[in-house]
């Protein structure tokens, strides 16, 4: 079962960190990556650039509309993700709890829907 681990955190928190503090967070990600590899888990992961770089698209009729920024204007912004293939929700939550931002933001755990029933 694949689970998406979505990392939400107020962007101000990352911006308020010194380079040293940022490196410490990256090191914690490194620990998680090593653990996933050691456990033989299929996964992918990626940090996202700040929401100031995002653009939202919408097609209404024939018109493709673009607007600045993320779709949702929230206190915590989507900052990155892990996509893990694990046997259970418990396992997914175990890895989610190792994401360093769990202490300063929120990790949303969501199963990937394969839509097998419709195939």
């Amino acid at each position, binding site marked *: 079962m694949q689970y998406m681990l979505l990392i939400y955190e107020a962007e101000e928190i990352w911006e*308020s960190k010194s380079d040293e503090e940022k490196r410490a967070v990256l090191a914690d990600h490194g620990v998680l990556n090593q653990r996933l590899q050691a456990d033989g888990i299929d996964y992918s992961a990626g940090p996202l650039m700040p929401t100031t770089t995002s653009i939202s698209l919408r097609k209404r009729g024939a018109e493709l509309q673009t607007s600045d*920024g993320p779709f949702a204007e929230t206190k915590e912004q989507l900052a990155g993700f892990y996509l893990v293939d694990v046997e259970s929700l418990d396992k997914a939550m175990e890895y989610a709890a190792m994401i360093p931002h769990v202490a300063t933001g929120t990790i949303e755990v969501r199963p990937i829907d394969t839509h097998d029933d419709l195939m």
Partner: protein
Amino acid sequence: MQAELGPILKAAYPQVVATLTRVLGDMDRAMDATQDALVKALQTWQVEGVPSQPVAWLVTVGRNRAIDVLRRDAKSASWETITGDADNVVHLADEHPAERWSSNLDVAEINLSELEDDMLRLIFTCCNPLLTPPMQITLVLKVVLGFNTNEIARTLLTSPATVEKRITRAKQRLKDAEVEYVVPRGEELPERLQAVLRAIYLLFNEGYTRILDGNLMRGTAMAEAIRLGRMTSRLFRHNPEPRSLLALMLLNNARLPGRLDAQGHFVPLHAQDRARWDQAMIREGVALIDAVYAARHPPGAYQIQAAISAIHSQAATAEDTDWPQIVALYGKLAEYDASPVVPVNQAAAMCFVGQTHQAVELLETLAEAPQLRDYQPYHAACGYAYALVGSRDKARAAYHLAIELANSPPQKAYLQARLKDLVDDPAHESGR
């Protein structure tokens, strides 16, 4: 996992001061209350963990603490009359009668748009046009970022006494003019936003030019300007100029390491080691300006400058640079920025696309501009362009002037080397 509290508190600080200034009706009182709330947070959060809404928690604690202080201080006058917003404070005081210092605060959900309005009020107040730009920067550092006097003095390379004086004068001006704590509306807004962006860019350039002068301490000014740029980019997410300014600062900052060699000597763009540019910062700057262009915003001065910087940043070598595009962008920029510095840069770019005679012509039309008389890059550009068209005497005279005006040793050394080339190389060919 126990989070480091530092970054969380630092991130919350501007928001808490902004909201408390509205609630308490006084900036000084808001800053004191915020400090009290931070101390309380450090004690409480270590034990109980970070609350789900740190800003709301801090605002609640700060507000209640301020009310206690007001009550204690109110001896002859009633405390309601001391506050700028008495109704508000009375109302707030009644909300949490017993558990004011309890860690288990019943923190109300604070509306996101209300918080953003508070941030806007705070930033616009600090960058009020009644204040001089140095006052604006000083106030932003103190109020928005929570710097103390010594930190501001270090960041701006000035004395703590000067900082104190600026803050006192700035506050007096705001008080005398009875400046309201509001977000400018309607027609006033674009102009006021420009003032905010100008103050942020000035702070950035403070750091930038001092680093070029060999003062490495100034890195903090640039980092804080970028932080403010991020803040304003989010607050004005539908306006492209704050994001364009952020892109411009990131791209210029990214290329700074290439501008000085190991001995601290100035290196001109074409000779820079581009491997020393910060590629991560360039990627973000380019992503920002790409997004601005993708949304098809009307052009603005920062947007065009960022686009120019993005072209330089992405070119593998000076020769690979899309110089015709840069010449065109400077032409466009002149429509939005009347400064004679813009055509100086355009003329310099023209030299790289073989338009040397046009460059000389353009530079000569600027000869009477009073702002350029003491502007070193103008005379350096003249020296360069005259040398290319073979006007060696004029080139020499221009370089001499530029050397005299250069205020940093690396710049001076670079210009002297160019002048020496001119003298040493009698066969110096014209044109390119």
